[in-house]
């Protein structure tokens, strides 16, 4: 599952292929949409959650409120079911999906980081990221990535900085799961499900920092 971007996406993968999946795009309702989507995907596959032997979750980077929904859900599933929980960089999932669509490297993946910035990373090919994900203003990196195809919502939002736009726009949990399954089958370790925030928290105390009883 992945909630690091406006997409709330869930898929069930059996190690070979995606059995069922769900993708909804709604940047403000991750919390409401995720569990019903899990339920729907399992129902479509004709199985129950306790049949799952591992959980893979997108660790971002992504806007924090939504990102945490997927991470805490995955961690709780892991605890309740006593199964391992693996993290996968959300940008890696998008890159992998671009590769499934036929895109060959090198290319860039960029997603919406809000505040007129993008989360982005460079890829040698669909399976190989070069360097750590970063957060920047599109104009500030346009020159550095000039000539490279750009995948993801960042390219949709900032065509002047990223003219060579390629699909897909959003992350799909099926691609995330397939990538994780491939790496696990190859004996690779997947990172812990820790969030990639990439920004320090805004350390501002709101004026009325806690809600008072409505009258």
């Amino acid at each position: 599952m992945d909630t690091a971007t406006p997409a709330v996406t869930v898929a069930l993968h059996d190690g070979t292929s995606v059995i069922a999946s769900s993708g909804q795009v709604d940047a403000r309702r991750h919390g409401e949409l995720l569990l019903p989507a899990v339920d729907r995907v399992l129902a479509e596959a004709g199985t129950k959650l306790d049949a799952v032997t591992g959980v893979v979750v997108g660790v971002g980077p992504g806007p924090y409120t939504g990102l945490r929904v997927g991470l805490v859900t995955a961690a709780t599933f892991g605890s309740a079911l006593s199964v391992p929980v693996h993290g996968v960089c959300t940008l890696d999932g998008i890159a992998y999906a671009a590769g499934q669509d036929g895109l060959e490297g090198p290319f860039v993946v960029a997603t919406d980081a809000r505040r007129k910035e993008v989360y982005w990373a460079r890829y040698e090919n669909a399976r190989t990221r070069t360097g750590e994900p970063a957060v920047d203003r599109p104009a500030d990196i346009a020159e550095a990535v000039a000539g490279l195809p750009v995948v993801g919502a960042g390219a949709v939002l900032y065509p002047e900085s990223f003219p060579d736009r390629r699909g897909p726009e959003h992350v799909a949990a099926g691609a995330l799961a397939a990538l994780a399954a491939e790496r696990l089958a190859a004996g690779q370790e997947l990172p812990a499900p820790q969030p990639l925030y990439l920004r320090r928290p805004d350390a501002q105390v709101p004026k009325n920092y806690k809600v008072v009883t409505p009258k």
Partner: protein
Amino acid sequence: MAADEPLVLGIETSCDETGVGIVRGTTLLADAVASSVDTHARFGGVVPEIASRAHLEAMVPTIERALKEAGVSARDLDGIAVTSGPGLAGALLVGVSAAKAYAYALGKPLYGVNHLASHICVDQLEHGPLPEPTMALLVSGGHSSLLLAPDITADVRPLGATIDDAAGEAFDKIARVLNLGFPGGPVIDRLAKEGDPKAIAFPRGLTGPRDAPYDFSFSGLKTSVARWIEAKRAAGEEVPVRDVAASFQEAVVDVLTRKAVRACKDEGVDHLMIGGGVAANSRLRALAQERCERAGIRLRVPRPKLCTDNGAMVAALGAEMVARNRLPSDLELSADSSLPVTEPHVPGTAHAHAHSHDHDHVHEISKDNLYS
């Protein structure tokens, strides 16, 4: 403790404490809390994003700690309760998401409950079943309200609330003016013990004959105290910190207890419950005791650890929901930062239960979004 009483796990993440409690009926089995208060201290208040990040880190370890402490298996739970509001939206969302995932994975009913009603219900763990109706005074950094609860699971009525600052917020602000750090409650309580509560006559907000009888206002008091301190400093005089703390605290607890006792008398209620973080204040407890005794009212105040935000209070209300057969919430349950106090819990729509496979998503559209 009867084995047939509901065994419920409660999750609370409305502010800066990640709380997970486990109760069986009205018996407390575990109360695990992870607090991020130290991280917030240097900012002088709770920073929402820092709180949310801390909740994510602490959530699963705190659930596991609570289960271990209670010596029960998650499989034996009769329900999962969670604070769905009011509180900080992003913080609530971590707890609500965890509770939904836990309930779903274990196949248990889910109860999204109201934070304020939970603060009242927690007293069942200390003093047994709540009388009906219960009169409650809730005072903390986030709330100051007088509530009348004929049925804590279904009928909670607000009689009055603060029109500006919460009582606990006033403590924090005065502590800041006096350079005493955050949070302000405990340090002011301690210093006030060595000061004279009558040294300075600070104003009692909203206590005039024409003022709303059960509403509170602490903003004027806060300004008045700050001005008094600044005047002393401007005159080059030493600020009598202990006397200021004692006189300020007296003004707050005088108004709180006076209004609460009056509400009990007006409504013919012979019990008063006091909850919320400020209920840990020793002077509030003492004055409330004195005034309740004089008025023939029985005072119920839980131990301080149950007054501050915790998961046990959520579990206590969840257990009551199970015991009274209240409708569980559904998987679409939202975090509602402004959940009205009149809604003790958030029942699901009747057609969608926890394991329905034919969700009708129409009702989702009408729900308010609560991220903003």
